[in-house]
């Protein structure tokens, strides 16, 4: 989202304050440097976004008559979304997903790992970090396959461990499975961010706290947390955005059974390709885009207030 920023040197305008041209490039060369990036952003970000808005006001479909001659339906897609029980369901599930796996799961697990590994022996720390990182960098399809095998009803690892043969975890508790999965999958980022944030906490203060006999919780609350508050904010907002837009739930459950794990991105996919309703799905995509922008805006605002 564009925010108030110093005038871009590349803007074809008279440069009234030469002091702004600190790099001494001059307009021509500055434009030359910016053009590739702007073109890429234009082609792959701005254009698709506008295209989405446009399709969102039509009844365009993947097949059938409306694929050849779609007509403009105005805001009908948006009013439909407001009354669409399945869309409400998707919003609610996305909220649960973000709350469970990002705001609570990844945040707390990531911090706990960073905090406990801080004093661990380097060998232990490196092993743990490598394992957590591995969960993060493996390709989604591979990971999804592993988790399906883990949760499988007939020969799943989880059922073998717990001795609960025949429990179809992904069918009976789809959202719980997804929250667990995504917590496992994404904790690495929070862990790394908090690891480096914790280094900003002055050891002398921790030492003093220990001297006066502060409990672990008191130390965390009164010494550590004030130092890393900004990091917590950054981390929470970033992982919330990623999680809200995450498509990997599709790989595990396809949104099923019967829409019980259909988060918004999965719903958009199912509406667009399974149902062929490209117009309606574009309208929902646009709503998701707006929601993302609002969160990003909130984030920028909070950051600015802090600094």
């Amino acid at each position, binding site marked *: 989202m564009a925010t108030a920023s110093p005038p871009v040197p590349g803007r074809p305008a008279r440069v009234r304050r030469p002091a702004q041209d600190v790099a001494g490039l001059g307009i021509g060369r500055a434009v030359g440097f910016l053009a590739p990036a702007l073109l890429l952003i234009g082609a792959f970000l701005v254009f698709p976004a506008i295209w989405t808005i446009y399709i969102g006001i039509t009844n365009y*479909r993947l097949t059938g008559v409306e694929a050849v001659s779609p007509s403009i339906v105005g805001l009908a897609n948006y009013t439909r979304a407001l009354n669409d029980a399945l869309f409400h369901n998707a919003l609610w599930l996305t909220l649960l997903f973000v709350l469970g796996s990002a705001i609570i799961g990844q945040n707390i697990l990531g911090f706990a790992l960073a905090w406990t590994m801080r004093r661990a022996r380097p060998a232990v720390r490196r092993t743990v970090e490598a394992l957590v990182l591995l969960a993060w960098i493996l390709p989604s399809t591979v990971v999804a396959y592993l988790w399906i095998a883990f949760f499988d009803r007939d020969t799943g690892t989880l059922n073998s461990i717990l001795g609960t043969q025949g429990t179809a975890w992904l069918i009976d508790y789809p959202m719980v499975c997804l929250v667990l999965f995504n917590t496992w999958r994404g904790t690495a980022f929070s862990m790394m961010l908090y690891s480096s944030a914790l280094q900003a906490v002055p050891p002398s203060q921790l030492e003093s706290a220990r001297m006066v006999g502060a409990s672990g919780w008191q130390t965390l609350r009164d010494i550590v947390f004030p130092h890393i508050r900004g990091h917590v904010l950054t981390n929470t907002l970033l992982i919330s955005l990623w999680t809200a837009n995450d498509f990997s739930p599709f790989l595990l459950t396809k949104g099923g059974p*019967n829409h019980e794990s259909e988060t918004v991105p999965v719903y958009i996919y199912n509406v667009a390709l*399974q*149902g*062929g309703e490209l117009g309606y799905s574009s309208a929902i995509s646009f709503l998701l885009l707006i929601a993302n922008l609002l969160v990003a805006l909130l984030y920028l605002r909070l950051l600015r207030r802090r600094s």
Partner: protein
Amino acid sequence: MRRIPPLVRLAVLGSAASVLLTGCLGSSDSGSGDQDANRNADATKVELVIGSNAVKGGKNSAGAEFTESVLIPKFVEAQKAKGVDVTVKFQGDGSDDEVYKQKLALGLSNKTGPDLINVDGIWVGEFAQAGYLKPLTDTVGDAAKVDGWDGWKQIPDSVQQLGMFDGKRYGVPGGTDGRVLYFNKKLFAQAGLPADWQPKSWDDITAAGQALKKLPGVTPIQINAGTAMGEATSMQGVLPLLVGTGATINTDGKWLGNTSQIRQVLDFYKSIYGSGLGDPVLQREAKGRDKSFALFAANKIGILLEGDYFWRSVVEPKAGVAKMADRDTAVGYALIPANKAGGGVKGQDFVSMSGGGAVAINPNTKFPQQAWELLQFMNSAEMVKAGLNGAAKITQRTDVNTEVLAGDPMLNFVASKVLPLTQYRPGLAEYPRISAALQQATADVIGGKPTDAAAKGYQTAVEAAAGGKDKVTSN
């Protein structure tokens, strides 16, 4: 300089772009229709791609194997004799039909995709309406050439419908199929049921299910339901049951909405999945259908409603995806009964549903004439027979069928007993959306919703798909 607020800038940019874009969607279809059908007709170097949802060692393995190692070399050889250097590639797929369809539609909408395309008969309508497929006579350019092909005489009219829309031929059908109730004779013997079981009503099915329920670890009945299986739920579930209530999904141009027949079908689902006769979890799993195959092959499902595909490609002892070495002795098959004697469509005692695919020519092909030649070649009696490779299947050609079906009692049963009483799905563009609504209704019922609520939801979905209340029957 006066600064323009960023939001205003964005808005100006956006509206300018929207103006530019308006009218771009979908209007690009005119191109292919105006193309010269004789383009590259005399080329000596030709490249063609055959696309199909079949892959060696996976889905429809035998078909992929045949295309790659017999059909293509033979065609290349035949063309070489004419001095044409042809390269034919096979673009296999091994995914769910819905996913394959999405891939095709996305490719065709961007004017790409294989030159010859295997499609399900029920997609022809919506693809044709979207301009993704054109009548064969348009693509080939010469009506006499297409209609004069001697193969048409061998293909029964009902089967030809699979490749037709609005009275025009869009592709050459690849045979048809029929649905029956398969049962495991070993389990039937243990439960004290006859090996030549033939239920005469839905109650007979549930009665057999009650007997099978006493066997430990056995799911008595599995009838496809839910959205995860896609069209399989409609073809091997709702529709055969629906014709068993005397109704068809589309009568005189009106779609069947929330009616007593739909509710009867949903009640039957409830009676099976709500009482432990069937396993509702299996119907909700993403890979539920494949699992039902594996469980049947492992003697863990008593009765399963499936098409002859199940016999040919699933429990087939040598190349099936869930092989049963003792298929011929262990697997029984029976006609699907109407809900009660004489209660089926046209007053029939027994019912079935049939479908099948067709091969169409991509209107954007570079070589329409050569594609038509390949299409004829693959549907010649010689190639259709070669494609069976000793196995039996109900092919599109009557001449081949009379020769091969006698060798396989099950397929002979389908050809002689099932096909005379079967029904086809309506070749209307709205059908796939109506079908999705049926699938959703069954998903609701096996998920625990009351029948009435599921039927009401179905009515709403059908009205949206059909385009108005007046196009839907309800009572």
